[in-house]
């Protein structure tokens, strides 16, 4: 099979590539572009370790053919922090001991970003549990993750309203 052209914006940078159509978005990120923060866990859409945002929505990158996502905007864990400044979700995970080992954590962070963007991170812990249930881990960090999601959601909402106030004042 001949390689096919593919253009992706990943963490704000455009990549023009040629790929074998069998390559998943996950393998493209890890093996070709050396963005190894996104993890390959089950590789079958069950564990959530490969979660990335595509056009703002979280998906399992292991079940996505790269060529099928031509033109997409992809955000991976490498694109979340601003230089040395952690994203509020990352900071909240540290503050509430929501970190697991490095294997599940990137997927959990990306999934939290997706959950908040979807407007589904309500204040009911059951809702957060359900919203995060696509990310599996046995490191027992779930309790901390719920606290982290709640705090990150509030901090992001506050940041957004402060930005709005600044814009209004200006």
């Amino acid at each position, binding site marked *: 099979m001949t390689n096919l052209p593919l253009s992706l914006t990943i963490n704000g940078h455009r990549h023009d590539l040629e790929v074998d159509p069998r390559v998943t978005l996950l393998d493209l990120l890890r093996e070709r572009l050396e963005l190894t923060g996104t993890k390959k866990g089950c590789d079958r859409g069950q564990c959530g370790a490969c979660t990335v945002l595509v056009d703002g929505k979280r998906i399992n990158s292991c*079940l996505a053919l790269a060529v099928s996502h031509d033109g997409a905007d992809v955000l991976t864990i490498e694109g979340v922090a601003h230089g040395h400044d952690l994203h509020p979700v990352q900071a909240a995970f540290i503050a509430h001991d929501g970190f697991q080992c490095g294997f599940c954590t990137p997927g959990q962070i990306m999934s939290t970003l997706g959950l908040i963007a979807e407007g589904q991170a309500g204040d009911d812990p059951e809702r957060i549990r*359900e919203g995060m249930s696509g*990310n599996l881990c046995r490191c027992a960090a779930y309790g901390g993750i719920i606290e982290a999601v709640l705090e990150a959601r509030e901090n992001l909402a506050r940041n957004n309203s402060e930005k709005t106030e600044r814009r209004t004042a200006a």
Partner: protein
Amino acid sequence: MRDFDYIRPSTISDAIAAAAEPGSAYLAGGTNLLDLMKGGVASPERIVDITRLPELNRIERLADGGLRIGALVRNADLAHDEAFAKAYPAVAEALLSGASAQLRNAATVGGNLLQRTRCSYFYDTASACNRREPGSGCDALGGENRLHAVLGWSEACIATHPSDFCVPLVALDAVVEIEGREGRRHVTLEEFHRLPGDAPQRENALEAGDLIVAVRLPAEAASFAGNARYLKVRERTSYAFAVVSAAAALIVDGGKIRAARLALGGVAAKPWRARSAEAVLLGAEANEATFASAADAALADATPSGDNAFKIELARRIVVRALMSAQAGTPARMPALPASPFFSLPGARHDA
């Protein structure tokens, strides 16, 4: 994963012509197809990527009051569409009870109808499976089959259809809009999926090249909005397929049931419309005794296919509970754990 040709047609007619060639498979969300390809269960020679086909990702209200949902609408987008969830709450609840947020963001309406069974023998290419390889036998018969079918199964296959979405859809008389080489046609969802008989590999009404372009809900389906529930029992509270599920919708007038819809999931190779139970409900008093009679009617023809006799009793109880929940009224807000029976009745909430 085996090598394949990949094409991305820009028109429906080009897609149909390509998919009509032997060895072709449509790709939309890919959440089931890629999984099957990685496991060697499916090995298409040609992938026809339909994600860029125009006008298949719309939700449209029809002049007759019905709704037309494009085949490429994502499960999450449909479930979170406010107007949709208000008019068809049991369908939204079923969608949100299925899979995980990541999968619901990718999976499509059309793909959901076509997802394959989760029978572990179908997935295990070392096992005999008439559905995967016609004539090879069925290792589920006499095997680990506590999750297999209790209705409509045959000696050739005891697998179940895994969809949640299809269960309330079949209860609400959904219609599948199909475009093929001969033009466009409509098939009721009830007739769309086939029982296994002696040819379990033929799972639905699609012919070579046929493309699902939309799913329609008739105007009447929205009239159940105030009293409709989907309940699902599973082995975890979230992110698991149904052991048994039920969609129930009622219109009650002066204590009597004026209209009733009931369908079950996890019990057969297709979403199971329980018409005999609906006949029991129609015109009867809306109470637990009536619901129990309806549940008996729904499961009257059920027979265990191995270790799963418990599912028959479980299904009876879920039918009663779904009907009681429907009678009690659609929740004002989507439950935190959609379709969980723990949220179905006043006083039963486990966070209360």
